[in-house]
């Protein structure tokens, strides 16, 4: 570990803190109750949709609107992939896409997971990348943010039957936030060296006289929303490790900020809409502490060389460079790995499969906690609020008082819905992993044997269920078994969390808000921050500890003992 490495991490943190408040203020302008359309374009969009912006929806209507939209997205994205060979903009002649891969990829992109069982530059045409996948990058990000705003309204409204209008929430975030920021990011990325062209791959003769073909394409425009929307699906197989997808240390830094920016701003939006910014900062603080703890462990782990390789005569001073790029080095790779799994991004600038066991453990845990450390755009905030509800409930149990959060009494229905959302994660992750590792067919897809192979399977279902999309990529997941089960895990992880969260929001919105009294548990102080972190770690940690012990933890000791598998 070096001072300059820590300074990079500190600088990242400082900028994140600095942008949270102004960005949150901007979002609050968009989502304050009763705000009329801001522009003629917005009004025109509602007219085309046939939607009255003042027509508010109950939580069930809101959820149905979201699901209807997702089904339409699935059909469109499945179709555009299957028709790739007859559609235009396929200069490199990409072949047909199998039904199971098209299904897996469609689910993956509409749930904001962006798990990729395929290699981008060898599978998808430019048209599929742009008009199929990147559209879902916008749509799934917008939908995630819309859900978070709806859940916030559950807390901010009193005695209300409705939690907003899904279509209005979608249109506003897309029109005023996602598109403008993506345009700016795209231009910065191109200036730094990212390609943006419709021409087919380059063919050239190298300095040594060999032929080299280089895949290229409209990369930068896709990259901007991939980061901002915490989607993470790469244009190229190597994702943000590919020099065309992340050419410099500056693009790397901006990509990481883009991943966290909306998730952080939503904590501030929460504070503003419930009328007390400190409530948002308390959530920010809990997330931030978990983030710092994670990055410290990964940086510490990866700055050590693999002792097995050092024993062979490799200079250990550079740290663990297998699967990392020189221009980023250890610090920026450790920071990226932590950020991408805290959020539900899943982009990678280094190959997690080749991290040392404890360095790979942290990304796994980050995802198992439900990606509530800033999290996916929207899903991070509503995921955290579910844990906050449990934290307040636990505090209430301890003092024997009906728990309240922001003046809303938490009763049986809310707690049941919250637990349903929280339990679906371990159910899908551990259930599917258990099935995969006892069947011979799926096992053949693992690259490694022993504990590392187990980690590859565990990581895959964790990443899918948590809607992350990163991988221990030694797993060859493009088989019918993996595509099918991963697709199911992604749906469980998205919809079995968001629908209960909307139900909680609907129930809370309908309640009166109780005045603060001497007995109210303060949810803007250090006690709440500590209690939330405790609940998150106990629920997440204890549930998954046995599985983690079988994978990365065993491997750590095997590595120290010099055991090869």
């Amino acid at each position, binding site marked *: 570990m070096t001072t300059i490495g820590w300074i990079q991490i500190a600088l990242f943190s400082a900028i994140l803190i600095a942008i949270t408040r102004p960005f949150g203020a901007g979002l609050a302008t968009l989502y304050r109750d009763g705000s009329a359309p801001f522009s003629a374009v917005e009004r025109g969009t509602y007219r*085309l949709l*046939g939607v009255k912006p003042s027509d508010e929806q109950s939580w069930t209507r809101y959820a149905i609107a979201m699901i*209807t939209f997702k*089904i*339409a997205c699935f059909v*469109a994205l499945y179709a555009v992939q299957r028709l790739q060979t007859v559609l235009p903009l396929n200069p490199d002649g990409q072949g047909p896409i199998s039904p199971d891969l098209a299904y897996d990829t469609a689910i993956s992109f509409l749930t904001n997971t962006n798990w990729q069982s395929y290699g981008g530059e060898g599978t998808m045409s430019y048209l599929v990348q*742009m008009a199929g996948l990147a*559209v879902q990058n*916008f749509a799934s990000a917008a939908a995630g943010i819309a859900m978070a705003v709806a859940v916030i309204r559950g807390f901010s409204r009193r005695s209300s039957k409705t939690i907003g209008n899904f*279509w209005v929430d979608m249109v506003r975030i897309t029109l005023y936030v996602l*598109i403008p920021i993506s345009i700016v990011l*795209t*231009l910065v990325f*191109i*200036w730094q*060296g990212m*390609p*943006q*062209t419709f021409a087919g791959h380059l063919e*050239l*003769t190298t*300095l*040594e006289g*060999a032929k*080299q*073909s280089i*895949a*290229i394409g409209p990369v930068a*425009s896709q990259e901007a929303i991939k980061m901002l929307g915490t989607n993470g699906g790469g244009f190229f*197989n*190597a994702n943000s*490790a*590919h*020099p*065309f997808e992340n050419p*410099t*240390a500056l693009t790397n830094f901006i990509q990481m900020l883009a991943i966290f920016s909306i998730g952080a701003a939503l904590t501030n939006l929460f504070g503003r809409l419930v009328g007390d910014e400190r409530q948002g900062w308390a959530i920010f603080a809990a997330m931030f502490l978990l983030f710092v703890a994670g990055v410290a462990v990964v940086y510490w782990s990866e700055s050590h*060389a693999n002792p097995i*390789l050092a024993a062979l*005569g*490799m*200079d250990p*001073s550079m*740290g663990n460079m*297998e*699967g*990392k*790029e*020189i*221009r980023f080095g250890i610090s*920026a790779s450790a920071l990226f790995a932590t950020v991408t799994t805290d959020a539900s991004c899943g982009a990678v600038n280094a*190959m997690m*499969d*080749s991290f040392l066991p404890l360095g790979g453990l942290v990304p796994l845990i980050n995802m198992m906690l439900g990606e509530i450390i800033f999290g996916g755009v929207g899903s991070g905030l509503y995921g955290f609020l579910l844990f906050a509800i449990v934290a307040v409930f636990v505090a209430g149990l301890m003092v024997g008082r009906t728990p309240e959060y922001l003046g809303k009494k938490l009763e049986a229905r809310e707690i049941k819905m919250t637990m349903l959302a929280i339990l679906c994660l371990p159910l899908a992750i551990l259930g599917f992993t258990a099935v995969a590792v006892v069947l011979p067919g799926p096992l053949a897809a693992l*690259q*490694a044997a022993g504990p*590392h192979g187990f980690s590859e399977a565990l990581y895959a279902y964790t990443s899918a269920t948590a809607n992350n999309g990163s991988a*221990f990529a*030694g797993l060859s997941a493009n088989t019918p078994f993996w595509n099918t089960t991963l697709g199911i895990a992604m749906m469980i992880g998205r919809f079995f969390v968001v629908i209960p969260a909307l139900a909680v929001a609907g129930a809370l919105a309908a309640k009166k808000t109780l005045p603060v009294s001497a007995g109210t548990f303060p949810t803007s102080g250090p006690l709440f921050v500590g209690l939330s972190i405790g609940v998150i770690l106990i629920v997440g940690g204890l549930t998954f500890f046995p599985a983690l012990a079988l994978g990365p933890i065993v491997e750590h000791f095997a590595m120290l003992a010099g055991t*090869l598998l």
Partner: protein
Amino acid sequence: MLRKLRPALVLLALLTLVTGLAYPIALTGLAQALFPTQANGSQVEVQGKVVGSALIGQNFTAAKYVHGRPSATTDTDPKDPTKTVPAPYNAMNSAGSNLGPTSQALSDRVKADIATLQAENPGVPIPADLVTTSASGLDPDISPEAAYFQAPRIARERQLPIATISSLIDQQTKPRLFGLLGEPHVNVLALNIALDAQR
């Protein structure tokens, strides 16, 4: 029924038109006007001929050239399309090795590479990046240490004083951005072009 579906279908159609087509097409136009070099892959020319991309590594094997990092990229086996064969720096199929830390294959590979490098430059510590594969398999850079490590071989092959090689490496070393972000690195293709220009 259709009234209920209308917002979903129209919104998806609008998103496809605006974010799926207008947005990338407009930005491609803008990119080609403002940053044509970068937008077309940062191609590098020597005497009017394109010899590579500044951002994409090449598989240098000749002794007179500085070598890049090992690359784990593969290509389809020409004899059996269901299999793959090693194809270093295959920029049509970027990939890392994805070998875990306790992998036998990783250990074997590193052991062989270390033996080769030790024979070339005995007694000097082996820089880690010369025996580890990059995440993309296309890393265009090596660390300055890895470049200096190869200086004796280059000097021998090109019959140049080692000080000339070292000063070229110094010139080609790109520092951290603002002295802060990333790591110092040497672009292998640029360094090799500079070496060729020495004669």
